[in-house]
């Protein structure tokens, strides 16, 4: 077994000391020293599905865009239509390259018509900022603001009950993918009803210096719901059950939104945007490969990168896979030629030299029941 990790030169969030004191298992996650689990991925995962969990996601990047043509800049680089947003509304989108592949996936928040707040992936944040800045031919100012924010995610059916205790904002009335600025746990915050777990929940952006106090306040407020601090391990299994994409796995520079099943974030009818021509052609001709979900029928656990066999021939690869703690199955996502990327097909996964049975299924694997 290989377990050694070098801890030198890893970046730390403002909550690093809190995680270490709590004896969380810390790992190198894309250059960040982050908690992968506190008491166990399964317990944390199930806490989020059944009650509430708290995640430190301060490694995520923030980019602020200001100026009268902010929306034009965003809409020239992103596949979704930011012009549709109203003040206080957020949108999932793709920052695309000219080939229609992903520079990154991101959340675009409209604070005001001349003020947008982007939340991007930790590992891509510097590249995203450079990409947007270098393509900025508009009257807009692009600021790399990651150092100004810590981000905490409160997720689960009791997230509302937990978070509501800490703010005068009317969180119950806040709609999914909307946000408000205001006091939260007695400090200034941006509170968004967003998440990456397939549950209801909130993502709270605060100043780094306020993060430790807010973290503790959330744990105290959630104590009656047995809130659990959760690591990135549970974050990954939760998003996989919900079949949400992860950069570097389902999506990357060579994968288009159509191939990744994210056609809903492509607005071909808006003015030209980076990658549009490739996507328009792909839309017309159809994709040659597509993401599809599967669950193991044989004894074995699929993992990222394993080969996928159809009729004994390796025709694709697993992009993400894991045991699914809430569903009690071994599940995964894989990229397959489009003619095979349909639910209900028998496939096999190449696990350490063995072909183990699986079948393609509809995604998401898990969908919460909305009240």
């Amino acid at each position, binding site marked *: *077994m*290989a*377990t*050694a*990790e*070098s*801890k030198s030169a890893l970046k730390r969030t403002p909550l690093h000391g809190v995680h270490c004191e709590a004896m969380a*298992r810390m790992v190198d996650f894309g250059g960040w020293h982050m908690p*992968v*689990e506190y008491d*166990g*991925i*399964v317990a944390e*995962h199930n806490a989020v599905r059944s009650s509430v969990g708290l995640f430190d996601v301060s490694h995520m990047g923030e980019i602020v865009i200001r100026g009268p043509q902010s929306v034009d800049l965003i809409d020239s680089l992103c596949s979704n239509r930011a012009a549709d947003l109203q003040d206080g509304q957020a949108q999932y989108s793709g920052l695309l390259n000219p080939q229609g592949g992903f520079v990154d996936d991101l959340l675009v928040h409209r604070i005001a018509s001349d003020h947008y707040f982007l939340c991007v992936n930790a590992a891509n944040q510097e590249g995203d900022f450079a990409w947007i800045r270098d393509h900025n031919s508009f009257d807009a100012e692009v600021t790399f603001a990651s150092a100004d924010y810590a981000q905490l995610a409160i997720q689960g059916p009791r997230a509302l009950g937990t978070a509501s205790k800490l703010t005068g904002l009317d969180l119950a009335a806040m709609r999914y993918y909307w946000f408000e600025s205001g006091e939260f746990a007695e400090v200034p915050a941006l509170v968004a009803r967003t998440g990456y777990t397939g549950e209801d929940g909130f993502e709270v952006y605060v100043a780094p210096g306020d993060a430790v106090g807010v973290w503790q306040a959330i744990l105290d407020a959630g104590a009656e719901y047995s809130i659990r601090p959760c690591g990135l*391990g549970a974050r*990954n*299994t939760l998003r996989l059950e919900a079949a949400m994409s992860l950069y570097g796995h389902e999506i990357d520079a060579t994968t288009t939104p159509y191939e990744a099943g994210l056609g809903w974030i492509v607005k071909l009818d808006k003015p030209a945007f980076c990658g549009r021509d490739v996507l328009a052609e792909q839309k017309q001709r159809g994709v040659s490969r597509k993401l599809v979900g599967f669950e193991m029928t044989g004894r*074995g*656990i699929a*993992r990222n990168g394993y080969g996928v066999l159809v009729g004994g021939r390796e025709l694709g690869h697993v992009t993400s896979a*894991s*045991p699914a*703690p809430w569903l009690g199955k071994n599940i995964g996502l894989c990229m397959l030629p489009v003619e095979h990327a349909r639910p209900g097909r028998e496939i096999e996964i190449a696990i*350490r030299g063995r072909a183990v049975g699986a079948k393609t299924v509809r995604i998401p694997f898990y969908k919460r029941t909305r009240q």
Partner: protein
Amino acid sequence: MEYPAEYRYSREHEWVQVTGSTATVGITHHAQDQLGDVVFVELPSVGARLQAGGPFGAVESVKAVSDIYAPISGDVTEVNESLIDAPEKINEDPHGEGWLVRLTVADSNELPQLLSAEQYAEYVAAEIDG
């Protein structure tokens, strides 16, 4: 954590306990602790010939899969079948009930090349501090 003094340990975090000509093999407390909740074990069949240092199966947690390596050479005489339904035994009792396989000892000269309990504890401490 106490590492049994009568066991020998590999740098890949397996332990071996030799009784006469039979060796019992498992993964260490440190190994299971690093993995987290074990949910799946893949073990060889009885009769399989293991080569010291060669992979002979895998232990998987939700998060990760770890190959397991034979600390010594030998033929598998027994497999801990109870782990198929109760892989958590590896977390609960890694040096006892969570054993993986039993082997015939093919070459007793391989044993001194493994670490003593004291050496292994130091090795793990250095790895944690690294």
